[in-house]
């Protein structure tokens, strides 16, 4: 009885989560522009999507910003973790408190705060202001993923390397860095996805001329939904699906190897 209830419940939640997405996918192949009439299979909205210069430019912006922001955030964040470890616990707590602000704060506040900052210092809003803003909200995620990797155990391993004659630089490269690597990687990936996904902060910190996928969707939805956005949804969904499946399979392979 409990089991059946559990199954039914899961199915209901799944339907709730996926039916809207399914509707978008189906409509993306509809010849008609209407959301209520099916006029036959077509790929015309996909064509329209890729012929849109605005969209192609937005995609390029989204990914270049995401990669650069994640890269910068990863470097600054990882260095910060190493720096924080050398500080007095009190100083560290204060800095970590500031570090958490962009993560805990509402995005709209972070967005307008940064916008005001750029206005105050007459920093013309555009690609660079968006990039800077993205690094601001990515760094906390990097720090939170890397920090747990640097612990007593890392200290011990570092000491063991020195004990065996390694210089500090060598010990850092050969022992500490490999220990931190999983944290650094997940910090980078987390930053990348947060950056790609962001709308609100980009919305307030971008200039008039620059769009990411998110801001472009928003402006188009406001004007009126075109089915090319359904095509975009389908592509985004399928991409996410493929990436997540690949990650999961890879994880399974690693698990299997470890089990052996």
């Amino acid at each position: 009885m409990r089991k059946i209830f559990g199954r039914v419940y899961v199915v209901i939640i799944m339907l709730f989560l996926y039916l809207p997405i399914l509707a978008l996918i189906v409509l993306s192949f509809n010849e008609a522009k209407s959301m209520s009439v099916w006029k036959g299979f077509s790929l015309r909205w996909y064509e329209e999507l890729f012929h849109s210069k605005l969209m192609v430019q937005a995609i390029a912006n989204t990914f270049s910003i995401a990669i650069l922001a994640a890269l910068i955030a990863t470097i600054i964040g990882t260095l910060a973790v190493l720096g924080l470890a050398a500080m007095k616990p009190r100083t560290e707590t204060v800095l970590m408190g500031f570090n958490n602000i962009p993560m805990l704060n509402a995005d709209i506040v972070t967005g307008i705060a940064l916008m005001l900052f750029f206005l105050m210092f007459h920093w013309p809003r555009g690609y660079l202001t968006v990039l800077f803003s993205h690094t601001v909200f990515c760094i906390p995620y990097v720090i939170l993923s890397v920090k747990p990797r640097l612990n007593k155990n890392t200290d011990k391993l570092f000491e063991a390397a020195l004990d065996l004659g390694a210089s500090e630089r060598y010990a850092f490269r050969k022992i500490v860095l490999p220990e931190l690597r999983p944290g650094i990687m997940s910090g980078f990936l987390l930053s990348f996805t947060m950056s790609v996904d962001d709308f609100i902060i980009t919305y307030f910190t971008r200039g008039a001329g620059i769009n990411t996928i998110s801001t472009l969707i928003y402006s188009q939805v406001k004007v009126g939904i075109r089915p090319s956005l359904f095509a975009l949804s389908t592509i985004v969904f399928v991409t996410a699906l493929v990436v997540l499946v690949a990650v999961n399979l890879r994880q399974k392979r690693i698990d299997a190897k470890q089990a052996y």
Partner: protein
Amino acid sequence: MIAKKRFAVPFIIWIIAGTVIPLASIAYYGFTSRSGGFTFANITAMFQHDHMQALGLSLLLALISTVICLVLAFPMAMVLRGSKYGKQGFLIFVIILPMWMNFLLRTMAWQVLLERQGVINSILVAMGLPRQEMMNTPGAIVLGMVYDFLPFMILPIYNTVSKIDNHLIEASYDLGASRVKTFTSVVLPLSVPGIVSGVTMVFIPALTTFVISNMLGGGKINLIGNIIEQEFTVNSNWYLGSGLSLVMMVFIIASMLLLQKFDKTGGENLI
């Protein structure tokens, strides 16, 4: 010994330029009048009828969405906890996947479903039923919020629930507690940290959103987020926008402090 303080220099610069000064500038603009003098007018502007209405509605809708998410998420987390390892992985995958889709597109999906000429109405018409006006209602906004934020409630709760030692539950049964009693006095108290971070992750974005209300409210229903956004993007009145943001931040901080009271672990489960 690995650590050197100077490594944190870029980080500190980023904190100052990216967090401290920007937040200070909200405070500065919030207490400054357009002519440049000190004023409380931007703060007290919250008491204007429109603004109070928007704030009240925001709090109400955010609260309703959070409660719905919580009620939907807890059974899901328990089902996940009880599933076998392989199935569990699949279910978590299924819950995470929508989070990877841009939330504007997800919100748009409901617009497509709910619109007058949308999918649900065309099905209703095909079945010979009357059209329903579903868009541009508070209900549509709540639906959008629940849809967008539900995974953020399920995952943290699942995280804490899955860590509850089965022995504790068995011990409770062993000591004579019923299912309900075991749930209310063992499972629920132990899941508080997950509930707290789930509530934080749903309530605050719901309270401050302007996107969902814009897309599913058709610009006719104003939440506090919409008011602030318009001050910045349409009216270019940063002073008023900042003042209202400060008031909104008070609510954010208050809700966080309130939640923190329940959670003694201090928000470690936030991601």
